[in-house]
């Protein structure tokens, strides 16, 4: 038979099976009602996003923490929060949990907040919960753990924030200390320089010169003392001579006084003569004027009197002049006498001064002797000072180098502190921020529906494949078909093809219904379609194999249910693999439904390329078994 004829035979077989699915009421119910009801009912169930109204009692002996828990749990509708306190509160809460009236109780012991704040740890917060409802219990414990973490973090953040601010201040102080140390180091260098200078100056001081000069000064003082004594003696002689001169002056003054007296008397006489003359002259003058008026003027007689008066006047003037001179001389003598007295006093003062100077020179001499002793002490002190300066400079050098080596450490410490306190204290308490991002935006059903697709495909294709094959066997059509064309592979593949078409359509129908009613979206339509195809191939092959192995339809139903129910629970769709016993887990993970669920989920949810290898291997083995078994199961 030609290839075209074979293809036509294959197409006819496929068409025949597809017509069965279209015309059989049971097949339609199975193919439409089951997936639609599964998607609609379970979609509504799995799309419930969270629990609500979970009854929780906050039994608190610590007002602060109790309020924090009540406030946190009271947000939203997840929890219905009651609060309580008192010694019986905790036990009453536990009793209410046991009687099913309460889902959980949080007991906060007294002083818990203070203990956490002061000691960094406190008495444990106790949570009692109803573990008979596993999901609710897990939700409660997880939620309360999260709240506890947040509350602890808040308290810790408060404490660490305070410590952080302290660190910040410490850093600033370290910076100041570093700056001050730098300044000290500079000043030390300056002082050290000055000390060096002082040392050099001290070293340059020549004490021996002082000793020589002091000797010179002593000689000088002695010489001066001798000179003073000589001057004193001279002054004594001068004084005596001055005394004698004074006496002479006194005598001279006495003589002058006598002469003056005489002159005074003489003047008085003259004055009398003058008066007499003036009267004579006046008489002459009056007589003369009368004569002149009467006769000629007799000149001679008047002029003689005038001349006499003039002479007398001259004599008086000279006497007065004489007296003035005597007065001047007396005055000069007086002045001389005063100067002599003054000189005598000065001489006396000079002698006293010389005496004092002499005494002072003696004292100076004594002082010089003392100075020599002091100079010796100074020399010793100078040597000590140089030694001290050397020691101090060395010490300053050490301090400076220590400061120098300390500065980078201070800088390092400051940098380390800066790095620490530049961080947010909140980031220390909770350095890792969890960013919960829900992958399934439309709710839990987004994750579940691909698995449900796989489950429905498994159940329906197992049942349809097995029953279809049994019907062919029992109705003789298989035998008749085989006799007409004895190619088992052709027959099996054609039936498989029809089942795969139906299965793929069914998967896409479920996806469409899930999208319309629950807004689920396919991440990759291409990979999902291919996954549905591969899963349909697998379960169709399995169904055909069952149909060839079992006796009748009831057996096929039994096997289908027997395969499906354990697979549903063990495939990771309803129960996670992680919760399965270790011995069962590898078997569970290798189940065809597990692989199918993973493939459907990977393509629908993640848009990833599923692992077709295992699915293909299963399908190939089952198809091969069917092809081999088919001729032996002809009836």
């Amino acid at each position: 038979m030609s290839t075209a004829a074979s293809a036509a035979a294959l197409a006819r077989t496929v068409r025949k099976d597809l017509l069965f699915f279209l015309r059989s009421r049971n097949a339609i119910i199975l193919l439409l009602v089951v997936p639609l009801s599964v998607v609609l009912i379970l979609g509504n169930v799995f799309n419930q996003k969270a629990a609500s109204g979970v009854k929780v009692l906050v039994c608190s002996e610590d007002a602060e923490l109790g309020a924090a828990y009540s406030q946190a749990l009271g947000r939203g509708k997840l929890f219905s929060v009651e609060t309580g306190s008192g010694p019986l509160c905790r036990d009453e809460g536990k009793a209410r949990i046991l009687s099913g009236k309460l889902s959980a109780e949080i007991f906060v012991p007294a002083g818990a907040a203070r203990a956490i704040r002061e000691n960094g740890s406190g008495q444990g917060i106790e949570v009692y919960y109803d573990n008979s409802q596993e999901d609710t219990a897990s939700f409660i414990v997880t939620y309360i753990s999260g709240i506890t973490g947040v509350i602890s973090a808040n308290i810790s953040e408060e404490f660490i924030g305070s410590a952080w601010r302290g660190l910040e201040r410490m850093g600033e102080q370290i910076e100041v200390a570093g700056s001050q140390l730098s300044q000290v180091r500079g000043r030390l260098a300056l002082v050290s320089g000055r000390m060096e200078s002082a040392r050099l100056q001290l070293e340059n001081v020549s004490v021996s010169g002082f000793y020589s000069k002091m000797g010179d000064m002593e000689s000088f003082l002695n010489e001066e003392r001798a000179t003073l004594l000589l001057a004193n003696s001279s002054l004594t002689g001068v004084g005596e001579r001055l005394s004698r001169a004074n006496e002479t002056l006194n005598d001279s003054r006495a003589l002058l006084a006598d002469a003056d007296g005489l002159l005074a008397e003489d003047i008085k006489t003259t004055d009398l003569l003058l008066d007499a003359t003036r009267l004579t002259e006046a008489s002459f003058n009056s007589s003369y004027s009368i004569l002149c008026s009467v006769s000629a003027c007799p000149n001679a007689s008047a002029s003689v009197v005038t001349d006499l008066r003039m002479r007398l006047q001259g004599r008086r003037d000279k006497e007065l002049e004489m007296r003035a001179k005597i007065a001047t001389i007396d005055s000069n003598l007086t002045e001389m006498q005063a100067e002599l007295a003054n000189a005598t006093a000065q001489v006396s003062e000079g002698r006293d001064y010389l005496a004092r100077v002499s005494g002072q020179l003696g004292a100076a001499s004594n002082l010089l002797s003392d100075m020599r002793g002091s100079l010796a002490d100074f020399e010793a002190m100078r040597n000590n000072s140089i030694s001290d300066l050397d020691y101090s400079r060395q010490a300053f050098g050490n301090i400076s180098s220590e400061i120098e080596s300390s500065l980078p450490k201070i800088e390092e410490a400051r940098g380390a502190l800066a790095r620490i306190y530049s961080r947010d204290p909140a980031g220390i308490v909770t350095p890792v921020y969890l960013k919960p991002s829900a992958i399934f935006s439309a709710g839990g059903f987004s994750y579940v529906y691909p698995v449900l697709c796989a489950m429905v495909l498994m159940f329906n294709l197992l049942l349809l494949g097995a029953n279809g094959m049994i019907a062919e066997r029992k109705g003789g059509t298989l035998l008749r078909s085989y006799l007409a064309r004895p190619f088992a592979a052709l027959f099996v593949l054609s039936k498989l093809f029809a089942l795969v078409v139906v299965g793929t359509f069914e998967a896409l129908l479920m996806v469409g219904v899930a999208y319309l009613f629950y807004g689920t979206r396919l991440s990759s339509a291409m990979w999902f379609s291919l996954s549905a195809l591969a899963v349909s191939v697998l379960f169709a092959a399995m169904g055909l194999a069952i149909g060839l192995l079992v006796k009748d339809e009831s057996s096929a139903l039994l096997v289908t249910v027997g395969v499906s129910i354990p697979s549903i629970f063990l495939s990771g769709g309803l129960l996670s693999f992680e919760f399965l016993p270790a011995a069962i887990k590898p078997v569970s993970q290798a189940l065809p439904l597990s692989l199918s669920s993973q493939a459907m989920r990977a393509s629908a949810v993640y848009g990833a390329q599923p692992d077709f290898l295992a699915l293909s291997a299963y399908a190939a083995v089952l198809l091969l078994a069917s092809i081999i078994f088919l001729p032996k199961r002809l009836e």
Partner: protein
Amino acid sequence: MLLKVENVAKSYGRKRVLSGVSLFVSEGEIVGILGPSGGGKSTLVKIISGLEEADSGSVSLHGRLGYVPQQDSFYPFLTVAENIGYFAALRGEALGKGFFGLDPDQQASELSGGQRKRLSIACALTGGPDLLILDEPTVGLDPVSKRDVLSFLAGLGTACLIVTHLMNEAEELCDKVILLSGGVVSDSGSPAALRRRHKAKDLEEVFVKVVNRSVSSGPRKDG
């Protein structure tokens, strides 16, 4: 000779089902195989159909084989034309030899008993078989339908190998009858010849005699 079966033997384990069975079917000839249950009829048919191999002996078929099972071996959800077309396609032809008086658009599940059998035979006739094997073709049919089927087979002109336990049917329809009992051919020949040989009034009596004889001789064992 269309079908030639010679000394065919078959055992399942230690149980011998067929032993030294030989039969011949010529073109246009209707041959009936009669025998009690467990007499080896089904095994013989499977060997002739090629579904099983004989342990020994030979089967040679010169032509194509058509098979009509006892039950309605067609698809009830398909129409008459779709059923016939399907089997015709398997045999590599567009359509069979016609619809044999059946409504091509009628769904098979709506056919009467006789029509169902006729459809079943029509399906077997697709591809133009030279030999038609029929397994209890009239079982479960009402008399009218039975008559209809038998007349239909008689008018086909195709060689038939009919497996049946209905003696009157065989007597009426078959050119030759083979009595198979205990895995061996107890007797064979035309109905009339068998009646004469066993001095019986009909084939049923012949059958009873042959079977009783086989039972009295005991089951055959290998070796």
